[in-house]
């Protein structure tokens, strides 16, 4: 049996007396479209921070393609192919859209430490960034400052930066959060168009989005994995309905 793309084993994280993650066993397969759902405070964002190395686990292990990366630092995990987006935009607001993506691509191809050549002389980085923006239908906005863009397009820049890292694992933290419904189709189209070979984990409250894309769904409650299954199984699970889906209809 081949190892899954990304796997966690009995992953735990405590903040003082609070257990934000408890014994999480999780598998993400290559090319998967996997959703992670759960009520507020269930530990979804903590889980992302554990996977990306922002915080170390209290105990347990994280494996990428069978290799233990539990003690690997954040920057190194990005190099190994784990990229994320943020629930609240984390963009380089005063830079142009192209420059935002340039930063990610330059970092990946190893151009960023270069001090004595102009950034503009790396035509390969510019070209790749532009092509990426084109694929996300952002090319027309490439020369605008990020803060000038409508919020939905800013969310796309979030995704563009992550894709500039050519990840094998892409963690999308509420990609459509805060986007007005009139604009939300651009986010859905972008997720639809993600390269097929990437393993994508989508964390979201938006059930339409989750059930549209996910082949598998993991439900987290109070820091533990409550249920995992196909959308059909999860949708039909009375326990899941009780703890989560019932509340989610409010939004």
């Amino acid at each position, binding site marked *: 049996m081949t190892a899954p793309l990304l796997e966690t084993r009995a992953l735990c994280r405590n903040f003082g007396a609070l257990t934000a993650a408890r014994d999480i066993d999780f598998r993400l397969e290559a090319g998967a479209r996997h959703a992670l759902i759960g009520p507020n405070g269930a530990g979804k964002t903590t889980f992302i921070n554990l996977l*990306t190395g*922002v915080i170390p686990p209290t105990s347990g292990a994280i494996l990428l393609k069978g290799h233990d990366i539990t003690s690997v630092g*954040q*920057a*190194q*995990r*990005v*190099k190994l192919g784990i*990229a*994320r987006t*943020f629930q609240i935009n*984390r*963009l*380089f*607001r*005063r*830079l*142009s*859209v*192209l*420059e935002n993506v*340039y*930063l*990610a691509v*330059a*970092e*990946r191809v190893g*151009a*960023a*430490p*270069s*001090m*004595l*050549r*102009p*950034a*503009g*002389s*790396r*035509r390969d*980085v*510019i*070209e790749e960034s*532009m*092509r990426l923006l*084109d*694929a996300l239908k952002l*090319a027309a906005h*490439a*020369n605008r400052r990020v803060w000038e863009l409508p919020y939905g397009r800013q969310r796309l820049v979030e995704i563009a*930066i992550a894709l*500039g*890292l050519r990840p094998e694992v892409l963690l999308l933290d509420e990609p459509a959060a805060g986007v007005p419904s009139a604009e939300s189709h651009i986010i859905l189209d972008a997720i639809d*168009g993600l390269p097929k070979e990437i393993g994508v984990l989508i964390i979201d409250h938006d059930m339409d989005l989750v059930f549209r894309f996910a082949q598998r769904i993991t439900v987290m409650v109070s820091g533990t994995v409550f249920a995992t299954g196909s959308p059909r199984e999860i949708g039909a699970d009375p326990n899941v309905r009780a703890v989560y889906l019932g509340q989610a209809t409010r939004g």
Partner: protein
Amino acid sequence: MTSTESSWADHPAAVALAGRHRLRAWEPIPWILALAFYFAFPKYLGFGTELLVTILFAISLDLVLGYAGIVTLGQAAFFGAGAYTVGILAKRGIWNEPITGLLLAAAVAAAIGLGSGLVLLRTGGLTLLMLTLCTMALLEEAANLAHDYTGGFDGLDSLPIARLLGRFEFNPLYPTTQYLYVLAVLFVCFLFVRTLVYSPFGQSLTGIRENTLRMHAVGAPVRRRLVLCYTLSAAIAGIAGGIWAQANAYVNLGTLGLDRAASVLIILVLGGYGRLYGAFVGAVAYMALSHFLSKVYPTAWQLGLGLLLVVIALFARNGILGIAEVAARRLRALRAAP
């Protein structure tokens, strides 16, 4: 969805990024003015030399503050380190050749920048601000206590600096050599900083300033970049300090003081930080203002400067250059519209 090779090179964004570092038509102006000053005001070359050193020091601060977003109040620590390196070596008769002296000043300041940066840059915000201030205060007090080497409160004077290139004497009364020497060093350092800020490294510093968290998330070694930037900036500040000691043939505790660190910060805010030329505009404006204000109201001229700073902070965050940029943009928009 996919497109052929090089089809994006003509996109306005790609053109803008690819040509961002090119020399603009107005960029030689400050250098022409500086040379013109040499011929037009031979009596004020002492003042001019001081101004050029201040610009060099302000550029070193702009690199850390304006580009990397490291908020520091202790930049004079490196200025002083450079000045004392030149001063002590010359006074003790160990080394007094000017150009290599500057390299030694840069090396000592860079070493202090690297050592302190490795510790300080683990913090941020107010903590960092206070720690940079503390580093400077510690150095100042150390210089005060090490009386045998530094001359303590009196400093070291009549430094026997050798002739420049073995030919040109540093005459304190007719500082023609000093002026041209400082101008040349400023030009070289400026070219280096200009190259740096337009490089991918400089771009990543801007990224760190704009969003540190995101730079971590794209896999950038953020702390390493900041420490490197801090060290390079310290080296340039060290050159500024060293050349100041050479030009004046003395060094005192004031080179390590908060006054110097604060005034260079004011200069950057006045001129506009993160803009390369803010140091030039700010230094000229600051020197002119303090000259003018101290004539009008000798006892409390700093009050006027303070009020101006308040106005800048409230209404023109990007300083004089920021105002100029907005004006230029408006003008272009007016011209574009018939």
